[in-house]
């Protein structure tokens, strides 16, 4: 099938097999930040934005993305560096394999909530698994980042 989308700000047209999920298409198009940690939409590693909303690309049929705007961490490098710096300052990236999907969802959360509470943060991100950190360092990074962004305003 023929697929048209806007990938990370650039128009893209490509042939792809009809049973493909968005994740595999993105990795084929060199968006290697998009990772697969399971095949059952449990881990959140494959999170990308479709029309600015976070979705799990492992269970998102490619055809659904037709005509839409898809954003991966490759397209948000400035934001990734900014928030990622707070992660790095906590040592909370550890193996880093879950970081891209997690950061995509954090950036989506920041778009939706002005000043999220701890409970809102934990609930919003509950689908993003991490086996290394025990999550506390990620929470510290998010809170420091939110305070930093709040002070910027």
């Amino acid at each position, binding site marked *: 099938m023929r697929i048209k989308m806007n990938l990370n700000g650039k128009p893209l047209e490509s042939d792809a097999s009809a049973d493909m999920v968005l994740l595999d298409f993105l990795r084929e198009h060199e968006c290697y930040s998009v990772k697969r940690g399971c095949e059952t939409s449990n881990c959140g590693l494959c999170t990308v934005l479709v029309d600015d909303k976070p979705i799990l690309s492992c269970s998102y049929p490619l055809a659904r993305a037709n005509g839409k705007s898809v954003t991966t961490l490759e397209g948000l490098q400035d934001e990734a560096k900014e*928030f990622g710096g707070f992660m790095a300052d*906590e040592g909370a*990236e550890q193996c880093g*394999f879950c970081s891209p999907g997690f950061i995509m969802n954090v950036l989506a959360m920041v778009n939706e909530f002005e000043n999220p509470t701890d409970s809102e943060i*934990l609930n919003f991100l509950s689908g993003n698994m991490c086996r290394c950190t*025990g999550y506390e360092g990620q929470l510290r990074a998010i809170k420091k980042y939110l305070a930093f962004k709040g002070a910027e305003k």
Partner: protein
Amino acid sequence: MRIVNTSVRKKDAMALVTGQPVYTDDIAPKNCLIVKVLRSPHAHAIIKEIKTSDAKNLYGVECVLTYNDVPQKRFTMAGQTYPEFSPYDRYILEDRVRFVGDAVAVVAAKDEKTAEKALKLIKVEYEVLKPVLDFRTAKDNQTIVHPEEDWKALVEVGGDRKRNLCASGVETNGDLDSIMSNCDVIVSETYHTKAVQQSMMETFRTFTYYDTYGRLNIVSSTQVPFHVRRILSNALDIPKSQIRVLKPRIGGGFGAKQTVVSEVYPAIVTMLTKKPAKIVYTREESLIASSPRHEMEVKVRIGADCSGKIKAIEINTLSNTGAFGEHGPTTVGLSGHKSIPLYTANCEAFRFSYDVVYTNHMSAGAYRGYGATQGQFALESAVNQLASRLNIDPVKIREMNMVRQGMIMPAYYNEPNNSCTLDKCLETAKKNIGWDEKYPCRDMGNGKVRSVGIAMSMQGSGISNVDKGSVTIKLNDDGFYSMNIGATDMGTGCDTVLAQMVAETMECDLDNVVVYGVDTDTSPYDTGSYASSTTYITGTAAVHASNELKQRILDVASTKLNVPESDLVFDGKVIRSIDNKKEITLKDIANEDMCGNNAVLEVTSSNFSPVSPPPFMVGAVEIEVDKETGHVEVINYEAVVDCGTTINPNLARVQTEGGIVQGIGMALFEDIIYDNKGNLFGTSFMQYKIPSRLDMGKVNVSFESSYEPTGPFGAKSIGEVVINTPAPAIAHAVYNATGVWHRELPITPEKVIRGMIDLEN
């Protein structure tokens, strides 16, 4: 100290958080054959016939391999050091399958779809045999998991394949029976810990290719590159000189990748086809055919006097190694060696005995804690029960009996306890959790009860007299250092931690030290990153190498300045004579070194240790039990750790938090469950649940650092000790809330409710 004991960023941090392609599957060549494994539907069977012609004839299929196509030479997939304690008990493919998920055939095709299709076209006729599924019945069972004559143990560890025994042994110290018989009170209980999955986010994966020199290159997500080389040499029956192993970034390991789980399949494909090949395990494969924690049944007997002094400890462990013996003979040891010494103070005698048995479950492997987790769940639970029986505060009974600095530990190879603040850890944990106010429980008046529980732990720092770490440091033009290591950073941050030690010793900025690892052709030998060894073992090598290089730089400066070395001072950038009259910069030394001299400003140092100093910790938990549903919610976890000097406090803290949450998963819901035919239920993260950020409450970490005289800058280890306390602490808290001891993990709501109902009746 300027750099050691500071929380610098990991050197790879920004690459990871910006999603750079640095992991195995990101850097694999695009033209790799895709390798898939056909897996057994039976727990125990003989392959009578296997027809591969339809699969081979499928367009795009490169090869279909069965037991007829692979070397018939037994090896072990356990990544362990010479002389290798795990038995040589497997082929790459065999005509006997020993668990549901065992490899039957290997397919390589041009793409994933074709490979999947080919798997379906392979026709296998099995003779289904009776499996051994309950490890309590495995020893001397009529079904023998390894009837083959060529089964081989390289080291005598009490194994006997005809009895389904992978290993067995007994150790005693003192006259246990007579001391036990004189005790006022004896607690004797049996504990059952289940197999659980490391569940690192990056599943097993490897790609392989031949290089210019006709050598087989293996790029793999592994903790043990040098062991991969040896194991593949054994498995493929080719010389080690023909194999090169490279480790890119690793997406977590926790011991899982101390077993060579995925490497053999693409390696044999590349060897036979000469083409690049790649395997990426699905999560399902990673859950059904991998290297989880050994299921153990631990029988504990503690003898004490009526004041609570623990006089005698007996531990008998039955360990389930599954279909193969990977890490079987060694994990079991820690269930005794790393539990009994916690109670050294008054202990006059102990006995530790064990059997490790084969069953038709997937092979177990190495998982953070490595047997200590299982043994400590049992012993800590029994000590809590002893305190309850004697009506002594569980904190107090530990204060009376715990191992302290300066003691010799007979149950820990008679090692002296040179650095230990376990007493302070206990005091701090008690204070932080609010023990005196909260123990044992408070009824919240809404059907819920809040309670507290406590446990202690120890681990080791490397394997004494075995583990060896090496570091090469080279001075380069303009005066920057490159460090080459054989230890494997798997997200834990050892690249950074070791560079911190070098920068501290060389008195330079961290950015002035670049790190490379691991390539078995060029990296200095390291046993690998496991057994909590890297900071302690390889760290010491990093310090030695730095000091030696510094010495060589001073030698060169002394010649150039014509000043005796003893009159020179090196501040990291400049070497000056003490009278300040002469000086030369490191930059000049480095650049002048590039021509016209024979100086070697490059040093490799290796290090092993005759001791394995234990890190210690105390975990105190507050939980809330819903008496209507049996649900246990962790409210607050106080972790207090003595890992010696924290080289990087942030990384040590995150290690601790991560370990605690893995331990909470093991305590409350992680469980590998088989049905009565040996089929596994937990084939995805839907059924095998690991903790999310809503399942762990609040974890608070404190450090009570001792100073380990044999460690680099006083450091011990941190990686493993942090997983051990949640299970016994939570079981203790559940008892304090409900009056029921749970001796089998995980402590699910069903078990909590059933326990409360049974108690009422």
